[in-house]
């Protein structure tokens, strides 16, 4: 659904998502995009890895959906990154669990994300590996090259780095605005606007 007759680099949807034509989205029916999300070239989202167990009563009162990857608004997936739902044995059966991502999440180049949950206003750098079932809360910055171990919980306002990643600092009070991705969203697409100075 490109708006312009000439094929642009991106497909722009009605809700404002900008998806590069060269991105690989597997199982698109299981990928939820909140809108205004940018997906760059060579990004891979594994929507085919859905929960293989019927979501029973034990999994809470959530709606019985087949969502594998849920992404909020104003997320930015840089070139070459990969979102893959985490999987594990559950009652003797291997199953994948959904990957949920909040708003204003930046994922750097060539980063692999297998987290269970990522909050809002999260900045994940380039060449990062986020291990399976990691939980990342709001306002977290993960520096380039970090390896977040599986099952790790990163509390809000943490700056995380290292292999394995550990909390190395705190996001200062004045640094919250830096997580906003609205301007970045405008700067890409088929007719990008220059970033305001």
């Amino acid at each position, binding site marked *: 659904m490109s708006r312009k007759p000439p094929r642009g680099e991106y497909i722009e949807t009605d809700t404002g998502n900008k998806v590069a034509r060269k991105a690989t989205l597997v199982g698109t029916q299981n990928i939820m995009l909140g809108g205004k999300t940018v997906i760059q070239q060579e990004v891979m989202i594994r929507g085919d890895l859905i929960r293989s167990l019927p979501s029973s009563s034990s999994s809470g009162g959530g709606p019985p959906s087949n969502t594998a990857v849920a992404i909020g608004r104003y997320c930015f997936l840089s070139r070459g990154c990969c979102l893959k739902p985490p999987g594990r044995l559950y009652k003797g059966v291997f199953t994948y669990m959904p990957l949920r991502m909040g708003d204003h999440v930046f994922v750097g180049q060539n980063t692999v994300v297998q987290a269970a949950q990522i909050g809002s206003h999260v900045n994940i750098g380039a060449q990062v590996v986020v291990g399976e079932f990691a939980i990342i809360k709001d306002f977290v910055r993960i520096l380039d090259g970090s390896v977040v171990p599986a099952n790790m919980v990163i509390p809000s306002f943490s700056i995380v780095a290292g292999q394995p990643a550990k909390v190395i600092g705190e996001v200062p009070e*004045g640094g919250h605005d830096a997580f906003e991705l609205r301007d970045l969203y405008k700067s890409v697409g088929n007719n990008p606007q220059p970033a305001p100075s």
Partner: protein
Amino acid sequence: MSPITPYTYFQCPCSDSALFRPGDGSPSSPKNRDFGDEDGAFDPRAPRANYSLYPLEYLLYCEDCHQIRCPRCIAEEIATFYCPSCLFEVPSSNIKSEGNRCTRSCFQCPVCIAPLSVTSFETQPDPNLLGAQDHSAAHHGGPYVLNCSYCNWSSTETGVKFDKSNGIHGQLAKQRNGGTTRLTAKERKERRKELVQSGGSAQGSDHIADEHGIDMETQFANLKHFYQTQLSSSTSGGSGFSGLGELGFSSPTSLSRIMSIYTGGGSLHDKKSKSRLGNMREALEEDEGLIVANLDESAAIEKLRSEGLEGTIDTEQLQNQPPNLGEPHLHGRTRFTSELRPIPYLLRTKRSKRCPVCRHIISKPEAKIQTTRFRIRLIAGNYVPSITIRPLVLPGSSGFIQHPDALLQPLRPIQYMLTFKNPIFETVKISLATPSRTPGRFASKVTVLCPQFEIDANTDVWDEALKDDNRRKRKGEESGNPHQQPEVGKIWERGRNWVSVIVEVVPASLRVDLLEAAPDEEGDEEGEASEKPKVKREVDRGPLREDEDLLEIPMFVRVEWEVDAVGEELGSSRDKEAKEKRELAYWCVLGLGRVAQGN
């Protein structure tokens, strides 16, 4: 030597006594502070400067003092303690009784500090099989172990297993490495009580100390018990050093005072003991808390021989280890990986911040852990104009285009565009001042082309959207033709609430052999007693030191604006229309990049 992107640091007034000197703080013309007054210029290379410069995001602003506050000078108050892993709040009363670590089942790997998960020992093959809170753990049953999914460390390596999958902290406290059980303090007290009731306490404590030797907690308990019995049984017999009696090392009074400090209670300290003088004997046996240092290290050497250096703990791992009261005293002991214990997570806090001067709260988070909102958050970015630096690329300019990350070429003038953005809702007047030469051995020349200008108020965001076209036009008017050249005394570009000015820099040559020229020139420029500086200054021809190639410009910024007189305390006598003048002045440092070496 990697190139850097331009940055701006702001100086907090808390550390700079020079700024508060008489004359300096007064709104003198920027020319005065320029270079004539050398001491007044801020030197970003001074060792002290490291502690007062911050990026704008780190700074807060006190609305009552009208001053910038930095993380170093604010006073912090802890609002909430919580575990960073399970995100449960820990009441502050628990901190006092149980320490500053999570007492649930949150542990870090002692080898690599990744989080540990509880897994059933029977079905161990898959390390990320089960989480601690998982129901299915109940299905498998059997002993549980802590497992690191990052480095595959397992608590079985130190012989620790658990019967239940929850309450790991409590279970771990009762276990030594190797799986043998250990008495907790409470149990030991009970057992001692029983033994005292049944017979002599001396035989009793023989049983308390088990075959592993006395651990620290037991030793402390033994010592405490010994001194308490000494205190209660000591009579006013031996006078000995009556002069020192009250303060002597082993006098009952000082002993009971020390014990009340370290054991908290001071319960045994009866009032009568104050009058008692004299000495008591010290502990002589293990049951009484005396432990003779074991200087025989042959066992450790033997173990080192068999396990090698890989079997020992490195310092980082040792530092991460929680204090473990359940192990013997460290006399002559070597640390081996078999002695590592899982690390319970250190708790984290949410803190509110106060101004150090007026004690007003300037930052206060919501107490709940899950929320990220703030009740009060006075960040400096909402009061102080931000400064962004960008190399100026003229559209018509020929030749090379300066890559933003490239090294600066010495002696080649470069122009930078400084963009000031006004965050407040008033028009502000800004005066800039820089020393014409940067401080340090290699002095670069700096010229701000337009040191005084006004920035329009930060109006509503909607206005911006509506006036967008307007702004464009305005920009065009100011800049005239696209081939505009930077001019002295003129603003480069102007927007709704921002203004760009040009600063021209001539980076210094980093050649040590050319250093002589600089002080000479300076003497000529100043024109006053040109002999003096020459004599004073020995040319330092040492090799290039760390960060001397870094081009940092100290810049003094003075912001003036007018606000409507609020008139509660100050302006009651004044007219309603009277405007109150506000002023904020501070140093910042513009880091432009590194200067190329070798030419």
